[in-house]
């Protein structure tokens, strides 16, 4: 699948193939077609007006359905932060770990029961500040995990501090005169560390995100999807980008499809404030995962 083959309009509605949808008139029941995939009794969720995390979670749920992942095989592991709250709303097996530790916990889940389809869902601060080493080494091992990073360029939950993805020059509560640091370029980081699948989209590319999750959930090895999401109460407000909808439009207007640029390397995936953002699929490789290699070691040990 290339970006061109995945128009933003691809995707469609949730099918009831995998999870039985509720019977009866949804409107009379005040139910949404996603409700059988959600812990709807916990809704409305805690995310702010105009936050993009809910849109990204909806796309992931769409992916679970369209990749035909059985409900009992779905696991989401998260860390700490607004993004990590998804575990309270998705109807899957879930574990809310401590800050930065979603990947090691998820690794344990996957190794204990390799039949599970394990997703790590967390924020940029969680995965790349306190949890950066875990990310790096899980990618190096090609561990069988899909890691979804909600990148809102700051620590949303704790009041909008700058972190490892805050663009140079951007304002945050800890960089009131502009950030002096350069941010990580997450797709490049993931690719360099050894990820088998790497993609980046904005939340307004929700149909592309649905298609990406559907594809990535069916792949093996370490898969990384970065979602550029609005955080209107912190990053958007501090940088005067506006409402959540305006922040979505802003990122979307800056995006350039990876397939439209003449470069076979990952050059141009960097996020520089107010400059174009390259989105698309950057890596898609079939290669031996940790589980494949470990099985060989175990077989050898038994000889």
């Amino acid at each position, binding site marked *: 699948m290339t970006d061109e083959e995945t*128009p*933003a*309009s691809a*995707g*469609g*509605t949730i099918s009831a193939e995998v999870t039985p949808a509720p019977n009866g008139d*949804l*409107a009379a029941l*005040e*139910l*949404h*077609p*996603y*409700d059988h995939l*959600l812990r*709807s009794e916990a*809704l*409305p*969720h805690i*995310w*702010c*007006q*105009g*936050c*993009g*995390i*809910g*849109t990204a979670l*909806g*796309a992931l749920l*769409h992916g679970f359905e369209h990749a035909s992942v059985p409900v009992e095989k779905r696991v989401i592991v998260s860390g700490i932060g607004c993004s990590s709250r998804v575990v309270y709303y998705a109807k899957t097996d879930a574990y809310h770990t401590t800050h930065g530790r979603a990947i090691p916990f998820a690794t344990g889940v996957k190794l204990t029961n390799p039949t599970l389809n394990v997703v790590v869902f967390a924020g940029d601060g969680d995965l790349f500040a306190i949890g950066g080493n875990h990310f790096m080494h899980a990618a190096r091992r090609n561990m069988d995990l899909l890691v979804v990073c909600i990148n809102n360029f700051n620590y949303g939950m704790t009041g909008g501090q700058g972190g490892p993805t805050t663009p140079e020059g951007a304002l945050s509560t800890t960089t009131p005169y502009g950030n002096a640091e350069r941010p990580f370029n997450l797709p490049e980081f993931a690719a360099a560390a050894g990820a088998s699948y790497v993609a980046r989209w904005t*939340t*307004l*590319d*929700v*149909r*592309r995100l*649905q298609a990406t999750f559907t594809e990535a959930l069916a792949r093996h090895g370490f898969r990384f999807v970065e979602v550029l999401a609005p955080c209107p109460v912190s990053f958007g407000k501090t940088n005067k*980008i*506006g*409402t*959540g*909808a*305006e922040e*979505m*439009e*802003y990122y*979307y*207007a800056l995006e350039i499809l990876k397939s439209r640029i003449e470069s076979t390397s990952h050059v141009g995936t960097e996020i520089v404030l107010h400059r174009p953002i390259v989105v698309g699929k950057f890596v898609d490789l079939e290669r031996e995962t940790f589980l494949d290699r470990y099985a060989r070691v175990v077989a050898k040990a038994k000889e």
Partner: protein
Amino acid sequence: MGSVALPRSTSASGIARSPARVPIDKPVRHHGTVHIIESRCKECEFCVVFCPEKMLEISDRYTSRGYRPARVKAGKEGDCIACRFCEDVCPEYAIYVVEDQP
């Protein structure tokens, strides 16, 4: 920032081809009915801003949670092309569309 074009994703997504009886090159327009779960809506305006038919708006009354829920503009009830972009983009799982049977 300035103004930006509508998402490409919503441009022609309501047009599909019917399998039978209609000449092969004649596009069939789909129609839908919008449902809004007002108690969940947080007035984020995603559906209002990104609906390609510009048929949604924020209402003038408040829910018990203090938000003004989205609603279909008066007289625009028949405009929905059932593209479901509002459904996919809504972060609150508060809006969905049922395609009308022809």
